[in-house]
């Protein structure tokens, strides 16, 4: 048994006594939590993150220069880029994609900004209820939202065209959803919860003293808003705009459900079609070239996002706590404001859910007609529940959700703890690496994994649930790492130092101090990840085959094959499960805040 002193003896790299301490940086690896973990853990995490986040992106880029379009083949070429960018329709595609992304971002943020202002800065009635329910639209993922709205808006038989027709005459019935504005509307609705969650704190934390100072300096209400309040929101607005633009450039849910049928092609649907050609092998080279071109655009976006979030942290330190924000008095507009919020909930949750429920219960899809009431039945559910394919999907989705949630949480915990606690200066690179997937659209990450594992037979996960779980781990890592960092930052450093001084090893400290203290964060993150894995479509759709179908892809294929009743039945069940999980999440985060 070696003594403590002997075990403490370390090889000290090079720093002879005479060398000035300023250059003796290697000595910093002597760390409090035990000499071995001080260096090994950050290095291991860096290697893991390199494989998980940098390699997929590089694979796509490399593939776009390979003649065969596969990363491990030989030769270099620019032909794929030449082909893609010499086709006239590519420019049309890019234009439509930009219109779709920008339009839905603008619509979503505008709606969310009004909602956030009403909830955080006015005396609107029922604002606490709204704040409690703001997570609910998470139970309506874009895929379900899109299907729900298609059902509501179907030409001639959808309930909304019928209503418009009876009020404004037959001409109004022609309002369609299978076009860019329709896609923008639905995608924008889907953006509201995220935008709200990012804008509301900015509005809440704005110390009214700045506004009061402006008012006493003689500024009118409008001037105050424009010159003082708005500049405070700019960083938050910029960061949410960038994030949503990146998502919008390659989201596939809405383009799949609405765009495909309306022949509105955007980048994501084009890539999907290229990956699933009617015959022959996919044109991997062109797919990679499209993705790489897009990545250049996104790299610019990410840079803006990074700058903006840096800035918003700077602003956040200005505001303090312990003041009561002055609320704007709405007066006789109070019922109008509450009505507006209720209207949003109707559009984002209630109407799509009712449309899906109705469709799942009617014997044939014929819009909303009162004469169908007597024919309502659970037949679609009965058929579905007798299908082995559904049960396989349930098992696959559950396995993926649980595996991805646990793996992502564990990885996020280690990454976050290392970033916050390590004294090594280069651990900040872990932060940057864990954020990379934010700049990679879900669909593109799916493509990258296909490229990697299609050729890499040594790791036989292609075509299994594990490749989808891996995809989810990667795409959800940035948010998980950020949430976990916030959690670790709230654990006072001395609580861990007290454990170390008490004799606790690195693992004992993690198990007995860090994890128990982070329990609320860990639970909330687990549920959030399960919800998002269950509803996720864009990654899964690129990675599914016969053997590893998940609920969202089964739902889409039923919908695509003209089985709206069964698709709606899955959607209703999924929404109920997601709703339950979101309710649990809401309760957890509120309970956590009250502690």
């Amino acid at each position, binding site marked *: 048994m070696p003594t403590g*002193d002997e075990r403490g*003896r*370390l090889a000290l790299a090079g720093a002879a*006594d005479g060398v000035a301490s300023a250059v003796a940086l290697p000595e910093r690896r002597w760390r409090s*939590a035990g*000499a071995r973990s001080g260096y090994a853990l950050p290095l291991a995490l860096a290697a893991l993150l390199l494989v998980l986040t940098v390699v997929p992106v590089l694979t796509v880029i490399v593939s776009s220069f390979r003649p065969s379009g596969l990363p491990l083949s030989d030769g270099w070429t620019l032909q794929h880029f030449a082909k893609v960018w010499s086709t006239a329709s590519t420019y049309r595609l890019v234009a439509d994609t930009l219109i779709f992304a920008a339009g839905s971002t603008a619509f979503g943020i505008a709606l969310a900004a009004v909602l956030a202002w009403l909830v955080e800065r006015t005396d609107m009635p029922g604002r606490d209820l709204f704040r409690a329910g703001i997570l609910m639209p998470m139970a309506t993922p874009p895929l379900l939202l899109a299907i729900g709205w298609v059902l509501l808006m179907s030409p001639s038989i959808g309930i909304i065209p019928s209503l418009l027709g009876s009020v404004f005459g037959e001409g109004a019935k022609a309002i369609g959803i299978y076009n860019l504005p329709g896609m923008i509307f639905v995608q924008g609705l889907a953006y509201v919860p995220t935008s709200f969650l990012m804008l509301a704190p900015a509005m809440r934390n704005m110390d009214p003293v700045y506004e009061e100072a402006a008012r006493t300096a003689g500024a009118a209400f409008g001037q105050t808003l424009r010159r003082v309040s708005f500049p405070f929101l700019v960083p938050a607005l910029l960061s949410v705009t960038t994030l949503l633009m990146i998502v919008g450039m390659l989201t596939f849910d809405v383009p799949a459900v609405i765009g495909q049928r309306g022949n509105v092609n955007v980048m994501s649907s084009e890539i999907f079609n290229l990956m699933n050609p009617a015959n022959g092998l996919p044109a991997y080279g062109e797919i990679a070239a499209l993705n790489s071109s897009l990545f250049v655009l996104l790299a610019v976006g990410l840079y803006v996002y990074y700058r903006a979030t840096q800035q918003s942290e700077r602003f956040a330190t200005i505001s303090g706590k312990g003041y009561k924000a002055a609320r704007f008095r709405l007066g006789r507009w109070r019922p109008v404001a509450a009505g507006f919020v209720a209207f949003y909930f109707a559009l984002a949750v209630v109407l799509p859910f009712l449309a899906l429920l109705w469709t799942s219960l009617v014997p044939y899809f014929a819009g909303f007609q009162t004469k169908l009431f007597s024919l309502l039945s659970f037949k679609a559910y009965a058929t579905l529940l007798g299908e082995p394919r559904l049960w396989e999907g349930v098992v696959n989705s559950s396995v993926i959700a649980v595996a991805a949630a646990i793996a992502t949480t564990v990885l996020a915990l280690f990454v976050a703890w290392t970033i916050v606690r390590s004294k090594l200066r280069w651990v900040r690179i872990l932060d940057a690496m864990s954020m990379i997937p934010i700049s990679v659209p879900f669909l593109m990450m799916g493509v990258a994994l296909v490229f990697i594992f299609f050729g890499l037979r040594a790791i036989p996960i292609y075509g299994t649930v594990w490749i989808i779980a891996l995809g989810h781990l990667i795409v959800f890592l940035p948010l998980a790492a950020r949430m976990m960092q916030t959690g670790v930052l709230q654990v006072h450093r*001395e609580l861990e130092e007290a454990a*170390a*001084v008490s004799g606790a090893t690195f693992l004992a400290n993690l198990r007995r101090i860090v994890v*128990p203290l982070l329990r609320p964060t860990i639970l909330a993150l687990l549920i959030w990840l399960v919800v998002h894995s269950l509803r996720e479509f864009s990654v899964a759709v690129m990675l599914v085959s016969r053997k590893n179908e998940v609920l969202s892809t089964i739902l889409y294929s039923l919908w695509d094959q003209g089985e709206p009743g069964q698709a709606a039945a899955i959607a209703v069940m999924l929404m109920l499960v997601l709703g339950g999980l979101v309710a649990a999440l809401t309760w957890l985060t509120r309970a956590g805040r009250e502690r």
Partner: protein
Amino acid sequence: MLLADRLRKEYALADGRIVTAMDGVSFRIAPGQLYTLLGPSGCGKTTTLRSIAGLETPDRGVIAIGSAVVFDSSKRVLVPANRRKIGMVFQSYAIWPHMDVYENVAFPLRVGGERLREAEVAARVAKALATVRMEGFERRPATRLSGGQQQRLALARALVMEPRVLLLDEPLSNLDAKLRESMRLELRRIQKSLGITTVYVTHDQTEALAMSDIVAVMQDGRIVQEGDPRSIYLRPATRFVAEFIGSTNFIAGTLARMSNDEALVEIEGGSLRCAAANGFAPGARVLVSIRPEDVTLRAAAAPAANEGGPNRIRGRVVEEIFLGSLADHVIAAAGAELHVWCHPASSFAPGTEVVIEADPARCVLLPEKA
């Protein structure tokens, strides 16, 4: 016994500047002593304490606890914090909120190398809680303790392992003034009865003077003076120490001559006799430190006492500040504004011509620089 030898630590700030937190810190603490590191924030006292605990790693130097070397940069020895067997009380107390009082105290017994039987754990926890007078609180959740109770709990947790050394990092700074005074006495009582070698970090000079066997005053990463509280207060070695501990007045002058027991300093409008000190050459620019409580005021008109006794300086009252327990008078004299603390009953109106009297033995000679 605790030994620190030429500890050195530099930090690189985000903007690339290098800060020296410890610049050759050395000391030796005898067994059972309470040794205080006293200084303003940023002086390196906390870095020194955390280096002893193993929470920071110095760039260079040696630290030994008892006969065991726990850190030696030249021999590449580094014992991690969890194997140094020390007790530490943190500034924030660092009470784990997810455990009750019992589990907090029992934690060091549970994570150490040796596995103790539960009965043994219970006995040692009970003993530690008895030491800090917290019997009966075992099952109280840690979140439901007052500041003073948290402080006692933190101390019990630090003592339960019967460590060789106890480290206290500003343990009283989060308590209100009344509680701080009683905890000060209690801490010292416990420390003395256990006879445990203790390092105490504080920026509060009163605390340091009241509790310590030895006080080390730190400035810019160095120990500038070390000694028992009385000698530090009565014979500060530098301008910084004189100013940081207690209040004082400085009168600038030139050393005229030095005898075995007295030095003569030429000041504006006269001269001062001071206690003799080493290391000064005649003709050197010096400062004379005179504490405001060591001076008496007389009206200039009043008959002077016997010649050759105290130093006498003529001055004029600028301001009188009544503080209850004393009356602080600001006197313009010898080219400076001097504070003089008088009995609250005596009062000299602004404008009054006065004579200041100071015992030469209480006038301390200091180098002008630093």
